[in-house]
């Protein structure tokens, strides 16, 4: 099977084929290079990977990877302790483009991460914003929390109003 995996802003082509022989053996080619990977399922979210450079003197590296998708459907792959954001657009169109970011550099939607009250709206439709620029301030747990733009772009929708009480996951701002 072939997959398009977006990671670190780059789009990688990954092909996976079961290797003959060992139960968990796969021939994995990524951007042209082919590796032998032994994959053991630890649980529904966790795989243990042994990646063999398949060259003399190249060690067999061991990695534990854990995959989790958050409420918004964004995918995080933990490599050991390091979380890596990933979008998977395989033949069968993995993930939901509009939420998972598609070919862009970050999520288009700014959503309330927790229930709270909108205390300030810092962006108006048509504004040009840059990634990590604060666009809405929501108060929760007596702390004011700045919600930042997930990407560079232009604000197309603003659903937040000052004083508005919002639920977790409520759509506040859309950036194109």
């Amino acid at each position: 099977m072939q997959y398009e995996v977006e990671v670190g802003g780059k789009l990688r082509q990954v092909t996976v084929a079961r290797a003959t022989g060992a139960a968990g053996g796969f021939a994995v080619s990524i951007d042209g290079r082919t590796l032998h990977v032994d994959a053991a399922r630890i649980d529904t979210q966790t795989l243990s990977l042994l990646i063999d450079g398949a060259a003399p003197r190249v060690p067999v590296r061991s990695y534990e990877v854990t995959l989790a998708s958050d409420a918004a459907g964004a995918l995080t792959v933990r490599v050991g302790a390091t979380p890596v954001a990933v979008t998977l657009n395989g033949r069968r169109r993995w993930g939901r483009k509009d939420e998972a970011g598609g070919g862009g550099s970050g999520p288009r939607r700014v959503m309330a991460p927790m229930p709270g009250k909108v205390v300030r709206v810092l962006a108006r439709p048509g504004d040009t914003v840059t990634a990590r620029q604060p666009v809405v301030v929501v108060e929760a747990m007596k702390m004011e929390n700045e919600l930042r733009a997930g990407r560079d772009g232009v604000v197309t929708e603003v659903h937040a109003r000052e004083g508005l009480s919002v639920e977790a996951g409520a759509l506040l701002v859309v950036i194109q």
Partner: protein
Amino acid sequence: MRIIRACREMAVSTVAVYSECDRAALHVRLADEAYAIGPSAPRESYLNIDRLIDAARRSGADAVHPGYGFLAENEDFAAAVRDAGLTFIGPTPEAIETMGSKTAARTAARRAGVPVVPGAETALSADVSDQEIAAIATSIGYPLLVKAVAGGGGKGMRAVADPSDLAAAVRAARSEAGTAFGDASVYLERRLTRPRHIEVQLLGDLHGTVLPFVERECSIQRRHQKVVEESPSAQVTPALRIAMTAAAAAVARSVGYTNAGTIEFLLDEDGQFYFLEMNTRLQVEHPITEMVTGVDLVRWQIRIARGERLDLDPARLLAPVGHAIECRIYAEDPDNGFLPSPGRITQLRVPGGPGIRDDSGASAGLDVPIFYDPMISKLIAWAEDRPLAIARMRRALSEYLVTGIKTTLPFFSWLLDQPAFIDGRFHTTYLDDELKARNGRPFVEPSAEADEVAAIGAALQAAMSAGSMTSGASSAGPLVARRWRAQARLDGLR
């Protein structure tokens, strides 16, 4: 949890209270009895004295441990417990009242001959005019802090460098203090430059004995909230330790303090220390003191409340064995301005092995509530010295696995690699300055290797799950999630 564990070890049976959203919390599941005390909002449950007393009466409990937060420092609650004929596992209402008021506490400290941060001794009630306040401010000198008389934890606090900002800062502090503690009065205090936050743990029994413990270093703070604590402090010399602990004990004795409490000091760059405030309760960071002294503080809280005598060797409490560090792991997204990241913990693997202690209230399948301080774990590392303790904490952080929510684990991995932290060169605003300088730069910047492995892992997970798809699977959620569900049927419950 910490308290239930101590009780179990003493064969004391435990009664938990819970609000709606804490129904599934570990303390409820592992207590012997549990009582609902109302909705999730603190004001209607954990801050509702009547409901708490009712629950205690209903259960026929003998004593009440107030925990770390909420009403732990509320003299009315302590009094209500006493009036209900129950034992309050903590200081007397009188002691809580005196030391709970920052201004009264400062007076007590000065009477005990302990230096306090220069500032106004009188609370500025709502009716004091801006002019009067400005005059007081000038007499103290800038930069200064506007602080709420009640409560703590940075709420109702504002820093003022320029006189023109004073009036606004006071207004802001008053309103914040009003909502947070129901008491809008504030006071002014000189702001020391680059001070350290050093605190001294105390135990006092009902027979007049007050014993201080080796200091805790709590200068690593974000927005005035402690995130990392250590004991001992790299900055405190034996001579300074003797001076600070003696001063702390003197203040506590002067108010007839009993049970567990902590005196907080600011230590300036010249090694001069000033009384800051007293916490009249057990603190979140108490485990590091337990690790370096071998004393079980919660057990002693209970023994003291029973009227037992403190028969600990005072010298031992001031001679730390090795070094301990605590990281407060929060359900926050460090790469998104430390926004709370509530949700359901789908997976939890807690580190173990030598020198590691995890005081966790979380468990897989648990929903992290959004109503309270979203701390999911206190991770403590002990080792023979500070460098080894840091190395051990790094190792433990690398083993810690939490999925389903974002946590501050990556932030701690970053912090423990900072030269300033490793060298012990920091102060109470070090972290805020650093974070500002980073301007939201992510704490984890995956290596090219990690990126490649992540891509391979995602593709393999998809490929391996594909086989086990069934038409019966729910159609909610993105496809990849559905595949894991399908897989769950095969693996999840064998």
